[in-house]
């Protein structure tokens, strides 16, 4: 694919261009072609420049509070010029309510102060390339399903009596406050989690939900790169860097809100198929 082309523009009269300049430079460093309009551009001027320069993305920056008027005016002008394939993103001093409203009105995404430039670059790359990240293969499989229980002994006896599944091993992970039992079932395992000690997170889960499905763990290649990519894309993480799980493999948890309510664990397996 050709290099992504981006127009960074300052609509209106706002003269604060530190953000626009820093982002221009960061996107250039990320391998994109970037044109910066300079200050005081009207929506018409911005769209004209975008069409002439054949850009994929327009990035709008305003810190003066004029975003509610000026950003939609750019989108409207793009429609008028039949250039609505150009993606519009924006940033600046923009309250959350306004950001949501703008995102409903044709602005693809609003980035507010504190956003790392890498997040914006990753977002542009993904959006322009239709969401396909070439770097990663689909995850291989579900490695295990975590189930919170009051007693491993009692629960394991249910699975052994009625499903003829046997506990393979039991491990205490003191620093995380859990005792873990693995029960292989085909190429997936059940992972029974029993609280260990007073402050176990499993106790909280049991108190709140009374036990049951706790998390799923997916097996991935190169967990660190994946975490990096996710962090850049704004995925909420519990673990920024991998730690060692009960199975001895590198693992990391995503925040439940990332997967819309399910706690997901990434696990980097070794290359052999089946369970470990």
């Amino acid at each position, binding site marked *: 694919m050709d290099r992504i082309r981006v127009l960074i523009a300052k609509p*209106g*009269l*706002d*003269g*604060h*261009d*530190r953000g626009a*300049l*820093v982002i221009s*430079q*960061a996107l250039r460093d990320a391998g994109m072609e970037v044109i910066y309009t*300079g*200050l*005081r551009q*009207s929506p018409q001027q911005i769209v004209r420049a975008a069409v002439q320069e054949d850009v994929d993305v327009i990035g709008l920056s305003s810190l*003066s*509070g*004029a*975003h*509610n*008027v*000026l950003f939609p*005016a750019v989108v409207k002008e793009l429609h008028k010029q039949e250039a609505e394939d150009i993606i519009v993103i924006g940033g600046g*001093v923009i*309250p*959350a*309510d306004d950001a949501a409203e703008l995102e409903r009105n044709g602005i693809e995404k609003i980035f*507010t*102060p*504190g956003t*790392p*430039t*890498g997040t914006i670059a990753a977002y542009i790359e993904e959006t322009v390339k239709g969401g396909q990240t070439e770097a990663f293969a689909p995850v291989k499989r579900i490695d295990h399903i975590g189930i919170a229980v009051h007693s491993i002994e009692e629960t394991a006896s249910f699975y052994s009596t009625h499903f003829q599944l046997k506990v393979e091993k039991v491990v205490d992970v003191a620093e995380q406050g859990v005792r873990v039992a693995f029960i292989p079932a085909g190429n997936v395992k059940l992972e029974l989690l029993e609280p260990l000690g007073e402050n176990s997170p499993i106790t909280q889960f049991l108190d709140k939900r009374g036990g049951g499905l706790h998390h799923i763990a997916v097996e991935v290649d190169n967990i660190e790169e994946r975490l990096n990519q996710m962090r850049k894309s704004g995925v*909420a993480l519990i673990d920024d860097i991998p730690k060692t799980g009960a199975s001895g493999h590198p693992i990391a948890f995503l*925040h439940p*809100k990332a997967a819309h309510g399910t706690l997901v664990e990434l696990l980097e397996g070794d290359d052999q198929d089946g369970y470990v």
Partner: protein
Amino acid sequence: METYEKAYQKWQEKLQKQLQKRPERKKSFQTGSQIEVDRVYFPKEIDNAYINKSGFPGEYPYTRGIRHTMYRGQLWTMRQYAGFGSAQETNERFRYLLDQGQTGLSVAFDLPTQIGYDSDDPMSLGEVGKVGVAIDSLEDMEMLFDQIDLGKVSTSMTINASAAVLLAMYIAVAEKQGVPYEKVRGTIQNDILKEYIARGTYIYPPKPSMRLITDIFAFCGEEAPSFNTISISGYHIREAGSTAVQELAFTMANAIAYVEAAVEAGLKVDDFAPRLAFFFNGHNDFFEEAAKFRAARRIWAKLMRERFKAESPRSEQLRFHTQVAGSTLTAQQPENNVVRVALQAMAAVLGGTQSLHTNSKDEALSLPTEESARIALRTQQIIAHETGAANTIDPLGGSYYVEALTDKLEEEALRYIDHIDTLGGAVSAVEKQYMQREIHRSAYEAQKRLERNEDIVVGVNEFRTEDEQAPDLMKVDEAFVENQLSRLERLKQSRDTEKVEAGLAELKRKASGNGNLMYPILDCVRAYATVGEICHALREVFGEYTS
């Protein structure tokens, strides 16, 4: 007798005279344990080296402060920048702040006013009343200062390219209130060079812009001698991403350019230099910031004495306003900003600022609410009245670290200033984009350090909390824009059109030739010509600057 002993005696005499004229706030000052606090503390031995470098408070080179008693005599002016929407709403906020114990006003104008467009200009789309109050004509200015006595309050106005027009309006309001010109006190920012460098509200090219500035110097020298004619600003240079050294250096380089322009225009240094004021940023690095203010005073005093042969001590005294750094406020966990602001403000106080604006915690998100504006003001009041920081002069003076930083900042700033001299001075360096490039380089490096986690910003790249609650934000009522437009329409129909046109024609004539432009601008303002009309008239003659 040794020189330093004479210097000490001279200082003592002046100090005693000062104290007779204006006693300190209290008879004596004590710590919390009731230990007596001296006015100022000195090294064990006062020698010539000490006097050349630090000196006595109120004496050259003013490293330790420009007054003999500093905050023991009078606290800094607490001056909160405010303005939004209509003149009427802003007038209400001003009167609220004065009621809360604020001691000076500071007007924020909206961008159309700052760039010389009326509210009904197509260029003003979306910007009317946003970052400050919308002023189209004298009528709005009268409303802005309704029930505020311009003979009693001092007003700072953040206005640059259109400063001459807004100053004329302020003076015209004073006229109407019956306040004599010489009693009018305040400051206009009027610093166009940093607009080209960092802030972006320029209109005309540098040369005619410099003429407007020196016209203001001359006008105020004659007519309004208590008005600060310029506030040479490092603030925005720093906000744009410069380092403390660059802030100091580029501000001084700009100041040199203004002094040179005024001297070239035939003014005498000691006639205008006492009304030059400065405006610095109060940033995060506590000790470096305090040292920066000390270094600034020393650099300025030496420049004025050695380079410009100033003879009046008042020309050598660097007076400055500080605003704490807006760019350090985080949208994440906005309550933390209260703490940042307090520390930054403390550094400014330890650095001897003459006036101070403390930011509100929600400014990375929106304009401040009344509540957060009050907390910001209270922060200053706590520093002034509870911490004891105002009880002695220059409390950090003599710290090995702070003195070393002061020297180092001075040295590095002077190196930059020398380089800008070789580029032909600040005006030429601006045209060559030299400062702009330097600032951008620093801004980008800072961003990279942050993203590599080498620099930590609490709540942003460390110590984050998930699921933050969105705070209540200030909303400007958009309905006022229509009201503003219809009032402008009404004004244009009711005023004496011939008088306006004659005024604008005369202004253009003067602008094409010589003569001080403040007088014809004042005539236009009195006839209710608008900011846009006056600035357009000058655009026709001067042209416009594009970067």
